[in-house]
């Protein structure tokens, strides 16, 4: 009987442990602040000229999915970062090839898996948020979901509650969720969340 209960207890503990992934560094943004901020501002400049989004679809960040966005059409390509076709496609659709390649290299070095610009509205006026996800070093157990650090860069100062949670606006205490996630304050215009999806 005791043996039976021990088996149940061990199985239960294993399952409980297996459900959580641990991020090694809790201070990732502060450690990489300079690089991450420069990637964001570099992307902002390139995106303002010709909108696009970048995502790395493999674990080693060698395959890039690029969304080239125009008013009428979004083109989605997936290439190896060393493939000539990537350069050809960027040239064909008049993107700043060296600028995008610089961004890809920096993203690979900093383990940024996705960068995108997201529009939202305040008082019916359009605003912009740049959203990027980082693949941190984690300890993963069996069946545990992956974890990513998502950063949101707003253009203007945002409101947060006493727990540092992002709010809808100054007048309400309503928590604003982005992609179903609660975001926490880093600075008055940068916030973060831990998520199991990078986009």
């Amino acid at each position, binding site marked *: 009987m005791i043996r039976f209960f021990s088996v149940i207890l061990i199985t239960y503990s294993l399952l409980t442990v297996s459900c959580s992934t641990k991020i090694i560094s809790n201070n990732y943004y502060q450690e990489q602040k300079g690089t991450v901020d420069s990637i964001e501002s570099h992307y902002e400049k390139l995106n303002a000229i010709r909108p696009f989004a970048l995502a790395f679809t493999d674990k080693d960040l060698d395959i890039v999915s690029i969304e080239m966005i125009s008013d009428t*059409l979004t*083109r*989605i390509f997936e290439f190896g970062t060393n493939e000539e076709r990537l350069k050809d496609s960027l040239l064909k659709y008049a993107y700043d090839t060296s600028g995008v390649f610089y961004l890809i290299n920096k993203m690979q070095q900093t383990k940024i898996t996705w960068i995108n610009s997201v529009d939202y509205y305040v008082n019916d006026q359009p605003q912009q948020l740049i959203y990027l996800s980082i693949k941190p070093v984690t300890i993963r157990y069996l069946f545990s979901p992956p974890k990513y650090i998502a950063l949101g860069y707003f253009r203007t100062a945002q409101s947060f509650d006493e727990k540092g949670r992002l709010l809808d606006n100054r007048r309400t205490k309503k928590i604003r969720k982005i992609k179903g996630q609660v975001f926490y304050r880093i600075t008055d215009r940068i916030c973060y969340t831990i998520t199991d999806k990078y986009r």
Partner: protein
Amino acid sequence: MYDQEKNNLSIHSRFAFFLFLLLLFISEKLRAEYLFEGITSTKKEAIGFLEKIDQTKESSYWPNVKPKLFYDNLKLNLENPKSFYPGRSTNFCSYGALSYLVMEKDPLGYVKFMNELYDKGEATLNNNRFKPSKEVMQAAGTLKFKGVLDIRHAEQIWFLALADKFKGYLNFFDKKFHEGDENTFWAATNLSKFDRMVKRVCGVHVRAVGSDLIKPWVKDIYSYLEKRIDSNTISLYINNRIIHKKNHDKIKFSIPTHYIILRQISKQDDMITLRYWDYGGETELHISNRTLKKIVFGIITIDK
């Protein structure tokens, strides 16, 4: 004598079978005629109707809907039917695909319906009575952080009303709207629910292959689609997580997640180019034949 009776019986059963097929054909034909009756209109008629309406009136049924945003949105839907935007991170994509079909068939029916729904809190579209719940009426106009859907108040009403009206097995445990349910199973659509919605709202015949879990029994999906795309409207039920990967795990549940309207398909060597409509615009995707097989779960062929 015995052989003669057997022969007669065989002739009778053949005749009965023929009669059955004939009746089936006639009933299908009658149903088709009924479905198509009087549900086509033009964009010009719809704009004419909209111009005669007082566009400043508020509605007590929809307390958070702004009249200007509502009517501007209807105008936009007419001027650019491809602009329907189901919103970021919502489960409204099936209703987006349906909107595309409605606007192709009956733009006047759509604006009349939306205007009545706004004015009276209930309305009928092609014999489908819509009476959205109080929770839905309260929510319309408040959806935020969904991209341009934030300021498209007519589309918010339309998508919420459709999700409130049509239910499938995916909605079984979440039938009543609560805040944030636009992102949950409350708004989800399985393949047979989508077929049903298209049939009932657009009044057209729909033929679907595939299912919610098993891919369609089609040998060559590219040829299948290419053969039908010119004479029909094709909607695909796809696993969008292969195109838009969400994490780097290799083992994933293979399930469909998204509805699109296929606009063009072409092939060069092994590379297939799909051009499709979703989220307010067209997307061009370059994939291999293998990936096409992996992503397609349902092919819905709709009479033009």
